[in-house]
């Protein structure tokens, strides 16, 4: 792992001369002696607590209302006006600590200064008290699984794929990228078609099947079941990438999937997200059966997990003493509640507390939903959790963050609301703005924790410096219509051109159309995989506007 090529998550400001001198002379002794006094509250703020309960006051003016600073050398407390007095009276007493915020201040520079060693000292006590529960995630095995994950990403890189020729269909007026083909609707199966279209173009998944990783020949010989979901998926891949542009009917796959998800086997409309999850589950089960293993989600080598599985971190903090308990859980996708920001302005203007008085209606954005997802949430008073420190049930707050990002990220927008009280379901039709390029670093555990602790400079355990947090969109599954009777359509982005996949009909569309659509599931893949995939596709779409309609018609 070449660390020099890694982009640092935060830049460390250079220390001033006075801080540098202090460090040379005293090293970490000053910080260490303060360690016991650091107390991190439930809001993440760390204060310096003196042994006696007296309120800290400035040595020179007895003031207590201003910011107070504790000199690192002589431990005298002074307010901003008088820090200079301490500096002048005893030479070298330049560096002090803000008592309320645990931040370094240089009296001579009259400015805040930063030192990673100091931040480490501040946070070390907090980290020591953290209890980490791992659900199938051992910190000891973390390094090896990380390496395994890196190599598996490279592994999923195609080798045989390059040998397949770029098949150009002479019949088509325009040269569409390979693998773009309509799917016939077999009776309310647009939910399946839409998800399949997206999955067919997830670069690591596509490469896996196209390079023949699932060998149908050996599989049929070994397997006792008549139906193998993986074989059927492989068949679909082969058919879709064959170069034939006429719409394909995934009947065998549908039947095979019904065997797996018997409860969903019908010609009724289904939920695309439910199908997606059940399909990934089917792949996982089948691969485990073939290998005769029983893997936990976090380390499972099945293709579904290798592509989509990530780790979610949940921190539960006691609001009384600040004690935090951490849990890790694997995820295959993230379901986001819609961020009601466009309703926000109307609520607050009534109370008159909205500052600038603007009544502009803002749209909900995917970023807003992600912010909401990782926002600390106060658990209700009926959900008081037992705090180990206080030894009793206390009000707590919970905060989610991403412990590990997957290769491909599926974000589902919760548009279908089921109310248990009213015993009704409804669909939320708000338009959601979503980005084409997504930077997930603000949602990583390292960023969230760092922010919660007052923007400390930290080398975080499990810092995601080896996995990029930059994602590019490649598919959007959209839903139009009502809850009971709607239609799913997928938009695919191949070589920076968007295509609309509406069952059997494939058309080129422009960005604006995609942006205006009502997204339900948004698929992102790591940026470098996206660009690599674009190189692999081969045929460049060079259709003129007149030929934008693909000349095939399918029965529906």
């Amino acid at each position, binding site marked *: 792992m070449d660390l020099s090529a890694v982009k640092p998550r935060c830049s460390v400001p250079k220390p001033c001369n006075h801080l540098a001198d202090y460090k040379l002379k005293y090293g970490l002794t000053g910080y260490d002696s303060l360690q016991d006094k650091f107390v991190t*509250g439930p*809001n993440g703020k760390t204060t310096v607590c003196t042994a006696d*309960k007296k*309120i800290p006051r400035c040595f*020179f*003016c*007895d003031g*207590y*209302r201003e910011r107070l600073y504790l000199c690192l050398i002589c431990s005298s407390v002074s307010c*901003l*006006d008088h820090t200079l*007095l301490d500096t002048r009276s005893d030479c070298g007493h330049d560096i002090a600590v803000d008592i309320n915020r645990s931040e370094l*201040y240089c009296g001579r*520079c*009259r*400015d*805040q200064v930063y030192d990673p060693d100091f931040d480490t000292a501040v946070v070390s006590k907090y980290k020591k008290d953290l209890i980490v529960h791992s659900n199938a995630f051992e910190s000891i095995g973390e390094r090896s699984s990380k390496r395994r994950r890196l190599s598996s990403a490279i592994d999923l890189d195609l080798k045989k794929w390059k040998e397949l020729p770029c098949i150009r269909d002479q019949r088509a007026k325009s040269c569409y990228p390979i693998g773009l083909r309509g799917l016939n609707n077999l009776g309310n199966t647009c939910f399946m078609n839409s998800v399949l279209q997206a999955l067919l173009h997830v670069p690591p998944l596509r490469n896996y099947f196209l390079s023949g990783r699932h060998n149908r020949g050996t599989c049929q010989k070994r397997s006792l079941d008549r139906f193998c979901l993986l074989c059927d998926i492989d068949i679909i891949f082969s058919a879709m990438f064959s170069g034939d542009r006429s719409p394909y009917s995934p009947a065998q796959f549908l039947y095979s999937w019904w065997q797996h998800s018997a409860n969903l086997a019908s010609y009724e409309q289904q939920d695309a997200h439910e199908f997606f999850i059940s399909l990934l589950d089917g792949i996982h089960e089948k691969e485990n059966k073939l290998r005769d293993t029983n893997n936990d989600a976090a380390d499972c080598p099945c293709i579904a997990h290798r592509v989509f599985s990530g780790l979610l971190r949940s921190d539960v903090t006691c609001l009384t003493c600040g004690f935090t308990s951490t849990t890790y859980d694997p995820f295959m996708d993230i379901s986001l509640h819609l961020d009601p920001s466009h309703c926000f302005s109307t609520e*607050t203007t009534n*109370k*008159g*507390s*909205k*500052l*600038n008085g603007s009544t502009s209606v803002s749209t909900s954005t995917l970023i807003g939903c992600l912010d909401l997802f990782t926002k600390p949430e106060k658990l209700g008073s009926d959900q008081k959790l037992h705090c180990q420190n206080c030894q009793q049930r206390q009000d707590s707050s919970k905060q989610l963050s991403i412990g590990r990002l997957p290769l491909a990220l599926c974000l589902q927008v919760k548009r279908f609301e089921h109310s248990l009280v009213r015993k009704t379901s409804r669909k939320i039709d708000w338009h959601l703005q979503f980005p084409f390029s997504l930077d997930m670093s603000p949602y990583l555990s390292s960023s969230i924790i760092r922010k919660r602790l007052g923007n400390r400079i930290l080398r975080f355990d499990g810092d995601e410096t080896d996995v990029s947090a930059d994602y590019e969109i490649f598919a959007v599954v959209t839903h139009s219509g009502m809850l009971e009777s709607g239609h799913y359509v997928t938009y695919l982005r191949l070589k920076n051109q968007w295509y609309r996949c509406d069952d059997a009909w494939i058309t080129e569309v422009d960005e604006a159309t995609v942006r205006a659509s009502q997204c339900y599931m948004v698929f992102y893949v790591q940026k470098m995989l996206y660009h690599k995939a674009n190189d692999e596709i081969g045929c460049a779409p060079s259709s003129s506007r007149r030929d934008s309609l693909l000349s095939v018609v399918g029965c529906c």
Partner: protein
Amino acid sequence: MRHSVNRPPTPDAAEDQEKEPTLQEIINIKLIESGEKERLMELLRERLTECGWKDEMKALCRAFIKKKGRNNVSVDDLVHVITPKGRASVPDSVKAELLQRIRTFLNSAAL
């Protein structure tokens, strides 16, 4: 000078330096000791974030830093520039809510 010789004169001798604590000081001490001050600070932070005050202050800081140049600004400068604007733009509803909380506290603390 009336005051103790050990104490250097304060730069702006606006307040009387009496040996007895003022009512304000007593209230403040009571607030801190009971932990109420910390709770009020938390509430204030929450309200100021909700109504967009924090974001506006952030924007003001950014504008100031942009104007002066990143390397010519210290935290002291920012605090001095932002404080008057910040104080002036706290919404009345927030002030009212906090005052009410303090009143309630004082009634219960039976000063």
